[in-house]
């Protein structure tokens, strides 16, 4: 498979966005059009007059990539060019779960034939690691910092895959950049299914989460191996496939490697929070039948 994301982009070493974009394009091939909202991916790949995109690519705004994708799909339909050219909207968690929510919701409700890939690095990384609707329980960010009386973000992640499935999407999947083959297969499946399809990819960010640049894939895998990030597929709202986790690792293995959870191991009462996080993993094991 040819990589259609040219080298030389300005992503950090160990950047999750670069991997997500590369895997997505591997699944799509050359005959596609990609829309990306404002975010790391856009900034690092398109400093004018350079571009890393070897396919047609457009950035519009932070909050409207699903609407722009709707328009591209409509244009291809109107001009009789729909069918082979795949339309992909690829954005971060802020542009998907938060500011882009209405645009994504509208596009899915209208049933446009395109695939939305969410690259979930669990905060607004492009602006300096601020909390988003995808920031997990007890993570410290610059706008949900751990402090004397705070354990960071005390809300759970917004369940975006469930929301997209509730829109009547024929295909919704979770994946992770730690599992390239899984991600490529799921994006390809999503692109081949007619209608609005959704792939939510977990994407550890070396800068925002605070881990060594060589550890991106390892951390991504640990999220799956601790059952904090279950991998599954949904067809017409029903879970049809789940990736089993034979011997789940304790959540500490995942949390201890990241600066954003450091306070859980240094602050009094942190062990209680870790227990709550373990309970979230146990809930996933039960709910998704991971074992």
């Amino acid at each position, binding site marked *: 498979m040819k990589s259609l994301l040219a080298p030389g982009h300005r992503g950090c070493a160990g950047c999750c966005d670069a991997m997500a974009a590369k895997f997505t394009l591997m699944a799509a091939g*050359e*005959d*596609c*059009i990609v*829309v990306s909202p404002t975010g790391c991916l*856009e*900034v690092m790949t*398109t*400093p*004018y*007059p350079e*571009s890393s*995109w*070897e*396919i*047609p*690519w*457009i*950035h*519009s*705004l932070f*909050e*409207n990539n699903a*609407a*722009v*994708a*709707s*328009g*591209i*799909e*409509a*244009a*291809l*339909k*109107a*001009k*009789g060019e729909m069918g082979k*050219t795949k339309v992909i909207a690829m954005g971060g968690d802020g542009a998907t779960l938060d500011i882009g929510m*209405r*645009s994504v*919701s*509208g*596009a899915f*409700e*209208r049933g446009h034939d395109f695939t939305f890939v969410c690259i979930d690095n669990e905060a607004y990384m492009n602006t300096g690691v601020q909390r988003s609707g995808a920031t997990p329980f007890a993570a410290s960010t610059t706008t949900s910092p751990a402090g004397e009386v705070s354990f960071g973000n005390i809300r759970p992640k917004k369940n975006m895959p469930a929301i997209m499935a509730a829109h009547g999407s024929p295909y919704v999947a979770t994946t992770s950049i730690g599992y390239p083959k899984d991600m490529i297969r799921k994006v390809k499946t999503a692109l081949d299914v007619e209608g609005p399809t959704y792939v939510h990819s977990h994407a550890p960010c070396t800068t925002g989460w605070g881990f060594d640049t060589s550890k991106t894939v390892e951390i991504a895998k640990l999220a799956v191996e601790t059952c904090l990030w279950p991998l599954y597929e949904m067809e017409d709202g029903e879970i049809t496939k789940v990736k089993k986790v034979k011997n789940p690792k304790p959540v500490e293995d995942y949390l201890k490697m990241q600066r954003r959870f450091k306070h859980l191991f240094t602050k009094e009462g942190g062990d209680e929070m870790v227990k709550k996080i373990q309970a979230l993993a146990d809930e996933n094991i039960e709910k998704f039948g991971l074992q």
Partner: protein
Amino acid sequence: MRRDYEKEKKDMVVVEGSYAVASAVKACRPNVISAYPITPQTHIVEELSQFIADGEIPNCEYVMVESEFSALSALVGSSAAGARSYSATTSQGLELMHEVLFNVSGMRLPVVMTIANRAVSAPINIWNDQQDSISQRDTGWIQLYAEDTQEISDMTAQAFKIGEDPDILLPVMTCMDGFILSHVYEPVVLLDDDLVAEYLPPFEPELKLDPKNPKTFGAFADPNSYTEFRYLQQQAMDKALKKIEDAADEFYDLFGRYYGGLIDTYETDDADIILMAMGSIVGTIKDVVDKLRAKGVKVGLLKVRSFRPFPVEAIHNVIKDAKVVVALDKNISIGLNEGALFTETKATLYNTKIDVPVIGFMIGQGGRDIPVETIENIVDEAKKVIDSGITVESQFTDLKEELL
């Protein structure tokens, strides 16, 4: 204005202004329409929906979005993909689109959008003034204002021709006064499909989102290049000055109807007093000019069709020999106490040798009626300026003291 009404009569039908616009859009063969309903734009999008439902616009997709923000966003995608793209909105909807407006012009996408001008909240008000589109003055869109339903219909075809010109590539707002034009029934010659096909070539942009020739749209520009993008937009606006005139002339040659290019004039050649205005109010002003001319008052009208690009030279040529110029504005810059047409006209005269006093009146806010008497009173105020100079530069008219 050059028109042969006698010749037109046989082709005239009585339709609502909104229908005339929708019918014009249909004749322009759009590929993608995207809109969200909002009063008083609603009838336009309803008529277009019906055309689509009846299969009357071939090769066209109508994207029924969940907001005005997405309406224009969808057209970012469709226009970049090479589709002729259209929307219509007004007031709060246009304000909601504000961020996207910059995006469309910055990426040089020649989207055409009809604005059924309406006041903005708060207080909420659905009636006509032009605060909504004037507030979008600096977004890089060409802004044209129509006097009547025939003009807004014909202006639709002109807008696509102007915006899609390879030398221009700018989005165009065609502005019609809400209700006053959008909901009025009057005789109109609807655009003839064959003539429009002759007038308006298919939209075939040199660059588009095409897997066979991949390009990056909307790249990230740092301080090294951002300025040059803005400069090029300004250059395109400069070129549009002539293109707007050409589009009006070419339209006249084919269709026999002309309403002015950048501006139009009425009885201005020997006028001491020149009233400047945009939109439907120019019709009322023409009546006042006729009435006062019969009494020997040397008054004339300068109708501004193009607000962006602002036709500095054309305006100067008309007003340079007048004794006083009065700009009438259905908008206000709160904090300056001036309407936009007044401010801009006044500003263009500074640093020139044209020495003509200019005064401004802010009228018709939130749909308040503008009777002939109001215009006559304004002319009386203008006469005083000729005799004794400016006492008040810019002011509201017809204020109800009991409500203050």
